[in-house]
């Protein structure tokens, strides 16, 4: 190889890395240079055997499977990262409170003044507290409303509206089935800072109501309302202003 072009430009030409001007120059040169034409010919033939001999080796299926398993274990499930140890304290405190007041005979009562609900405040608080026990919070742990909503398909006789409010500071972390007043209900689980907010949803035939005044019992607060054939109750140990904010988001 004595031609300067062979040493410098030929490979760039072969690889399509020359700009239009230099490429045209080289093509012009090729017409008169037997050495470059021969060198180019053998490089092209080498390339075509490399590309046509099936040398490319695709990843085996076993590798794909192993990688999925590895990714699974390197991905935190939302329930694990999002529910820190402080909650154990909350649960312990709650159990104490529940125990200390349990000798009262609980009568079935409305959960807020002027509005009746098909379940009692005590049942709702129980359901909320039960959900805070390890492993009870969510049946489907997902921050994606498009995962959570279809999950209810076939599990309930109604379709609860599911929306994530991460951008507004109330990330959806999952959902579960629950029972309130003897009825299957959807429980959507949101978080506000480190507080868990359960939003119970069930169908109703009653007319729409505004968001009612907050209820308070055993240190938990809730907001209750009806809208478009659904009965909602948002309950948490978070502040009432937080619960009200989430209620408004859902109400819209």
């Amino acid at each position, binding site marked *: 190889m004595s031609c300067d072009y062979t040493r410098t430009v030929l490979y760039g030409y072969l690889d399509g890395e020359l700009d239009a001007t230099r490429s045209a120059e080289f093509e012009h040169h090729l017409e008169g240079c037997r050495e470059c034409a021969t060198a180019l010919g053998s490089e092209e033939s080498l390339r075509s055997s*490399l590309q046509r001999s099936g040398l490319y*080796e695709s990843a085996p299926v076993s590798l794909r499977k192993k990688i999925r398993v590895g990714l699974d274990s*390197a991905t935190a499930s939302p329930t694990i990262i999002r529910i820190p140890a402080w909650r154990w304290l909350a649960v312990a405190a709650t159990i104490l409170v529940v125990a200390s007041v349990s000798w009262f005979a609980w009568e079935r009562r409305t959960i807020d003044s002027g509005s009746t609900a098909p379940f009692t405040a005590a049942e709702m608080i129980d359901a909320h507290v039960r959900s805070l026990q390890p492993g009870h919070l969510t049946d489907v742990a997902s921050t994606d409303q498009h995962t959570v909503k279809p999950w209810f398909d076939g599990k309930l006789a109604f379709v609860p509206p599911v929306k994530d409010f991460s951008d507004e500071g109330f990330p959806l972390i999952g959902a579960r089935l629950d029972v309130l007043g003897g009825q299957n209900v959807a429980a959507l689980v949101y978080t506000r800072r480190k507080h868990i907010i359960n939003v119970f949803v069930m169908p109703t035939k009653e007319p729409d109501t505004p968001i009612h005044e907050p209820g308070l019992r055993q240190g938990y607060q809730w907001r209750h309302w009806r809208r478009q054939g659904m009965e909602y109750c948002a309950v948490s140990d978070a502040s009432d202003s937080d619960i009200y904010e989430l209620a408004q988001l859902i109400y819209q």
Partner: protein
Amino acid sequence: MSGSDQGKVTDVLDAQDRARFEQLVLPHLDAAFNLARWLLKSRADSEDVAQEAMLRAYRFFRGFHGGDARAWLLQIVRNTCYTWLEKNRPVELMTEFDEELHPQPSASPEALAIAGNNRERLTRALETLPPRFREVLVLRELEGCSYKEIASITAIPIGTVMSALARARQRLQRALTHASPQEAAREL
């Protein structure tokens, strides 16, 4: 819940990271495996190393800020391969190493035998090249990478990619032509 768990490469990744990783990086698993296979010359070792590289990429995924996901992944694969070679076959990184290969048994007709022989010979010739020549050829001819991509994957300056490829191609041609008599002798 807040952004406090974001930003560090060693953090636990969440479902959103996972979805983004599956969309951007995982589709290049074949490219990752192919590069590892040609650097390590063994499917079994490549499977381990490609797996390690892919999981490493995942752990570092928050450090990936868009751009060419394939080049980003292949860079990690290449580094993982070289680390593996340094540990397990340090000689290979210093000298040309002519590993003896066992040809695949071929019970097929003549035409297939010729094609198979051709592939076998090419494979052997490629494998006699030092890793640094082999990788540029594999990236260029099998993976179809541009000079710019090759430069970013292999950490050689873009100006020297062309000369590295030129030398690699000349070596491959030589290896192919020199392989013939040896091969003939081996077949006798």
